């Protein structure tokens, strides 16, 4: 039987740290907060962004290095608000309070240095991060900034408009959209536009359509959900969503594919596509997306000027090897999901521990992704896959045997709740 010591570093690695400390073999750029005596033997990693990806990376770097790596997390928000399940706030079966969490537990339990601030710029040469208040030196930098929104190519709405929320980051806009739906008269149209992929959470818009239709079915049965999808087809769990549209929400949901916005009038709330002009009572524009701002500022968004190319063994940027990027910002044929973000974070954390310990990272990483969508307040559907690194293709490829639910069920709704509880616990505790 193999042994898994509580302390996950091998004896050889520990000896190596000790040697490194004695001979000063490892460079540590150093935070002023660390005195010389308390220098972490393996180095200092700065993580930008405390979402699923960043927080997971920070936590596992601490745990898997046995505390031998100092980790500083930079995050401007004071609490964690979960995007998964935020569509249920629109459907009425969850509140935003159900999805809001303190960072304190993770921070204290894993000994993460916390800086409540925004990252402004990266000085790659000097391995320094500029914050809005001060600077931070790092040995390795991990960016987990999530997505940024690009309104510039939306004809007629080149900047965000206050009463047309995206609600694509859980928070104020989620509540705003729910309130708009509550205020809408029965018989009104909820119009949602979906950008061309890739975007955060591929099945999210279709789950949202089901949630809004679930609310309409109970409260406003003469109303309609109109989906204007810029993509040629439903991008995820297609058959299952079509089943729900037809069987649960017949006459409540209209799905229009290839419906790129030709002109949007934010005052009249009309959307013109190649085929029609649609009048909205509540308009939800999910904007095109790209890597988070800090990645753009450092020129790391080197794929289509949107996403960041990384090495899937270490998540090092192809533009700068000392900067690692995880989560929704990276370019991959992988869905931008919370589970994917945490799986990438763990591979990245393990690779950085290996590298700072002077060893090679595992050249063939493997991880899983399971993603649930709720089609009403109780039933859910899933897509699940194992992904493994393909050294020839230099990317993560879906292993054989992955797939989706046979049908929506209450049992999968219970699994989806358990998924949320467990991924939150894994990230936040």
């Amino acid at each position: 039987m193999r042994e898994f010591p509580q302390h996950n570093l091998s004896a050889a690695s520990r000896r190596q740290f000790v040697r490194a400390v004695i001979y000063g073999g490892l460079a540590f750029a150093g935070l002023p907060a660390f005195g010389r005596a308390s220098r972490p033997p393996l180095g200092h990693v700065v993580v930008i962004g405390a979402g699923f990806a960043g927080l997971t990376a920070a936590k596992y770097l601490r745990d898997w290095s046995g505390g031998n790596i100092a980790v500083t997390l930079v995050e401007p928000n004071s609490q964690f608000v979960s995007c998964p399940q935020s569509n249920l706030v629109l459907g009425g079966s969850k509140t935003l309070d159900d999805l809001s969490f303190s960072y304190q537990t993770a921070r204290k339990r894993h000994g993460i240095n916390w800086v409540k601030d925004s990252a402004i710029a990266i000085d790659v040469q000097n391995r320094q991060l500029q914050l809005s208040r001060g600077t931070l030196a790092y040995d390795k930098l991990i960016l987990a900034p999530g997505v940024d929104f690009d309104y510039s190519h939306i004809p007629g709405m080149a900047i965000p408009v206050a009463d047309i929320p995206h609600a694509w980051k859980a928070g104020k806009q989620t509540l705003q959209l729910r309130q708009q739906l509550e205020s809408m008269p029965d018989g009104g149209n909820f119009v949602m536009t979906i950008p061309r992929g890739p975007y955060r959470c591929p099945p999210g818009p279709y789950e949202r359509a089901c949630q809004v239709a679930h609310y309409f079915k109970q409260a406003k049965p003469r109303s309609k959900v109109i989906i204007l999808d810029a993509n040629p087809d439903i991008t995820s769990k297609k058959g299952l969503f079509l089943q729900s549209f037809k069987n649960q929400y017949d006459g409540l949901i209209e799905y229009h594919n290839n419906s790129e916005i030709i002109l949007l009038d934010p005052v009249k709330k009309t959307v013109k596509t190649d085929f029609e002009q649609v009048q909205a009572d509540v308009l939800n524009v999910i904007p095109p997306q790209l890597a988070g701002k800090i990645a753009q500022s450092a020129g790391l968004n080197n794929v289509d000027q949107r996403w960041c190319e990384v090495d899937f063994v270490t998540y090092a940027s192809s533009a700068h090897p000392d900067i690692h990027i995880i989560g929704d910002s990276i370019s991959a044929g992988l869905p931008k999901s919370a589970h994917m973000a945490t799986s990438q974070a763990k591979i990245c954390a393990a690779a950085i521990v290996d590298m700072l310990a002077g060893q090679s990272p595992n050249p063939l990483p493997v991880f899983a992704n399971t993603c649930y969508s709720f089609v009403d307040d109780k039933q859910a559907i899933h897509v699940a896959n194992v992904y493994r690194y393909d050294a020839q293709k230099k990317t993560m490829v879906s292993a054989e045997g992955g797939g989706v639910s046979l049908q929506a069920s209450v049992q999968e709704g219970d699994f989806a709740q358990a998924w949320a509880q467990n991924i939150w616990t894994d990230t936040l505790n």
Partner: protein
Amino acid sequence: MLLGSNICYAIDPAIPLAASCAACHGPQGNSMGVTPTLAALNQDYFIQRMQGFKDGSVPSTVMHHHAKGLTNDEISALASYFAAQPRRTPTPLPHQTFQGAQ
């Protein structure tokens, strides 16, 4: 013996692989919900169930999609890992009132 190689890693590759199961089965296999707790699960039973999901002899809703994607070595490594994890009473999540971000 490490997964697929004799190289000595600081982190055994089975550990991040097992950690990837946490989204559904909880940290170190201690589940907070209706999904089974894998911590301290008998190794042979783990392998038997996973092989059953893989060949279809054990019916499943989700797990066949994962079991079929894993090699026999990976299933054995996961079995060893989870068998070695203690069962823990999960700490409650740090729920908070929404404070108005974003």
